C-alpha cells in the first residue's frame, strides 16, 4: 500500500469513528444486536415492520415492501407515498435481493412479526452475510408497545417511540376494559370469511384472527387450531354465525345475492361487514399496528353497547400519529362510508 492511500484510509477511519459508536439493543426474540448509535437508513423486511419504522422515523425508511398504489398513497405525504418498492425479505415469498441491502447502504434491517426459530435463524443469516444489524421485533398485538419502544431506542427516537407505545398501550387497555364489560352470553358467534368465495377462515391461534381472540369473540372456527383453512358452506350454515366479517369486496358483494347464504343469521340481520383497507387493512393483513383501528372497528360491530359508535376522531388521531397526516373529511367519509364498513 502506498503512503497516500494509507493516509486517506487513516483519515477515513478517523472521520468515521464517531458514526461507528455502538449501542446494544435486545430485540423481540431476545437477540442482542450491536448497532451504530446513529441509524439513518433503515430497510423494513415486511409491511408490519415498515409501519413501525414509518411511524417512528419516516425519513429513515428507505422504501416500502410494495410500492403504494395511488389510492393508498393519498393517505401519506407525497414524499413518503413515492418511496420505492424494495420487496420483502422474510416469510413467504422473498422478493428482495440481499445485495440491494448493501447497495442501499442500509444501517439497519428491521422485521416485525413471528419470533419463531425460522425467523430468528433468517435474521442471523442475513446479519452474518451482510454485516448489517438485523432487529427482529415481536408483532403480536400485546407486544407492539414493547416493539415500538425498542425500535425508538434503536433509531435514536426513544421519546417518540415511547409516546407511540403509550398510545397503543392505552388503546389496548381501553379495548380490554370495554370487552370485559360484555357478558359472555352477549357475545355473538362470529365468522371471518376470506377469499373470493368467503370460505377461507382463520382457526384459533392464527394470526389472521388475532383480533377476534383479542376481543374475546366467539369465533365459530375456533374449534380447530392452526392457521388459515378452507371450510364448506354447509359447515358455515351449521355454525350459523350471527356476525360475518370479511376483507374481500367480491365476497361482500356476492353474499347478499347468493341464495345459499340467505339462511345464515348474519345475513338476515344484515350483520355482514367489510373491513376498511386503506392505506393498510384493518383486520388481518398486513398484521401490524394498523390493527389497532381494527380492534375498535370490530369491537363496535360485535359489541355495539360497549364500544364508541363514532370512529372518526380515533381514525384521525391514529393516522396523524402513525401515518403523519390526518385524513381529510372526504377521506374519512370514504373510509367509513364504504358500503359494509359500518351498520346503517
Amino acid at each position, binding site marked *: 500500500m502506498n503512503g497516500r492511500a494509507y493516509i486517506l484510509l487513516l483519515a477515513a477511519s478517523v472521520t468515521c469513528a464517531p458514526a461507528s459508536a455502538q449501542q446494544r439493543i435486545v430485540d423481540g426474540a431476545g437477540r442482542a444486536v450491536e448497532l451504530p448509535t446513529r441509524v439513518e437508513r433503515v430497510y423494513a423486511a415486511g*409491511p408490519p415492520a415498515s409501519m413501525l419504522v414509518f411511524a417512528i422515523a419516516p425519513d429513515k425508511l428507505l422504501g416500502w415492501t*410494495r410500492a403504494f398504489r395511488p389510492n393508498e398513497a393519498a393517505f401519506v405525504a407525497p414524499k413518503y407515498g413515492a418511496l420505492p418498492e424494495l420487496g*420483502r425479505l422474510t*416469510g*413467504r*415469498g422473498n*422478493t428482495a435481493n440481499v445485495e440491494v441491502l448493501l447497495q442501499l447502504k442500509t444501517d439497519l434491517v428491521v422485521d416485525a412479526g413471528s419470533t419463531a426459530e425460522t425467523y430468528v435463524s433468517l435474521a442471523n443469516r442475513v446479519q452474518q452475510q451482510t454485516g448489517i444489524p438485523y432487529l427482529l421485533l415481536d408483532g403480536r398485538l400485546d407486544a407492539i408497545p414493547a416493539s415500538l419502544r425498542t425500535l425508538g431506542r434503536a433509531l435514536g427516537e426513544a421519546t417518540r417511540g415511547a409516546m407511540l407505545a403509550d398510545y397503543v398501550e392505552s388503546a389496548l387497555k381501553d379495548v380490554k376494559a370495554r370487552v370485559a364489560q360484555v357478558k359472555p352470553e352477549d357475545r355473538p358467534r362470529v365468522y371471518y370469511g*376470506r*377469499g*373470493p*368465495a368467503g*370460505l*377461507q377462515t382463520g*382457526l384459533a391461534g392464527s394470526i389472521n384472527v388475532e383480533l377476534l381472540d383479542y376481543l374475546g369473540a366467539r369465533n365459530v*372456527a375456533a*374449534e*380447530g387450531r392452526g392457521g*388459515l*383453512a*378452507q*371450510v*364448506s*358452506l*354447509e*359447515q358455515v*350454515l*351449521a355454525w*350459523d354465525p350471527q356476525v360475518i366479517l370479511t*376483507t374481500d*369486496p*367480491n365476497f361482500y*358483494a*356476492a353474499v347478499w345475492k*347468493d*341464495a*345459499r347464504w*340467505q*339462511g345464515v343469521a348474519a345475513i338476515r340481520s344484515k350483520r355482514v361487514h367489510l373491513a376498511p383497507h386503506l392505506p393498510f*387493512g384493518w383486520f*388481518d*393483513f*398486513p*398484521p401490524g399496528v394498523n390493527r389497532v383501528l381494527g380492534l375498535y372497528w370490530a369491537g363496535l360491530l360485535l359489541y355495539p353497547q360497549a364500544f364508541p359508535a363514532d370512529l372518526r376522531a380515533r381514525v384521525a388521531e391514529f393516522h396523524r400519529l402513525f401515518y403523519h397526516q390526518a385524513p381529510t373529511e372526504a377521506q374519512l367519509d370514504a373510509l367509513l362510508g364504504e358500503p359494509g364498513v359500518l351498520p346503517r
Partner: protein
Amino acid sequence: MSRGTAAYLGALAALAALTALAFAAGRFPVSIVDLLGAFGSKVFGFAYALPENAETVIFRVRGPRVLAALVVGAALAAAGTAYQGMFRNPLVSPDLLGVSTGAALGAVLGIFLSRDVWTIQVFAFAGGLAAVALVYWIGSSVPRHDPLLSLVLTGIVIGTLLGSGIALLKYLADPYNQLPAITYWLLGSLAAVNPADLGAVSLLALAGLLPMLLLRWRMNLLALPDDEARALGVNTTRLRAAVIAAATLMTAAAVAVSGIIGWIGLLVPHAARLLVGPDFGRLLPLAMLLGAAFLLAVDTLCRTVAPIEVPPGVLTAMLGTPFFLWLFAASRRGW
C-alpha cells in the same frame, strides 16, 4: 353373467349407495326423515315442514356439490380414457396437453386481479381451452415428425411455460391475501360449488361427451398405428382433433369448478380397463361410473371428517393408491 356385466352392476350399485350416503352425510345435521321429506315434497308435491336452513343445505349447498362431484369425476375419467386410448400410452392423463395448467394459470390470473368467483372460473375455463389450442396449433404445424410425438412434446414444453407463469403470479401476489387464495385453488376443492356452476359444468361436460359416444367405435382404431387406421378408411388427423377437443372441453369445465384434482384422469381408466378390457365403447361408461363414484366418495370424506375441509387431491391419492394396487394385483387381464 359375464365379468363385464358384473363390473357394470357393481359400479352402478356402488354409485347409487354412495350418492344416497353423500346426501345424508354432512356437517349440517339433516335427519333422514327430513331428507326424505324434502325430496318427497319436491317430487310428489305433498307439504312437509323442513327445519330452517335444511332446504338450503339439501338443494343449494349439498345437492349441487354431490352432483358436481359426480359430473367432475365422470368428466375427468372420460377424458383420461380417451387420451390413454388415443396416445396408446397408459401413463397419459387428461392434462397431457396442458389443459389443467392453462386453467390454473387463468384462475390464478383471476385471483391476482381480485376478480369474483364466477369470473375466476371463466378465466380458468378459457385458459384451459386456450392452452390446448396453442399446443395443438404448434404441435400440428411442426413438419416431418410423428404427429403424436410432436403433440406430446409441445404439450410438455408449453405446460412448463404456463407453470412458470403461475409461479411468477404467485411470486407477485399479495402474500397475506392473494397467495392463500391461489394455494387453495391449486389444491382443488368442491367447497364453493353453487347451482349455477353445476349447470354450466354439466352442459359443457355433456357437450364433450357426445362426440366421444358417437365416435366410440372409431376410437378403437386410433389405437392402431396411423397407416393401418388410414387403410381402414379413418381420417386420423380429424378424428384425433375431434377427440382432443371433446376431452379438453370436459376437462376444462371440470377443472374450472373444482380446481386441480389429480389421479382420477390417470388411474380410473386403468381400473376400468382391468375390469372390462380395452374396447372403448365398453370402457368409457364404466370409467365414468368409477370416476364419478370415486370422486364422490373422496369429496364426501373431505367435507365430513373435520370442520375444516380436507383437500381432495390428498385423499384421492391416499385412497386411490391402495385400491389401485389391489385391483392390479388381483387382475389377470393384460392391457
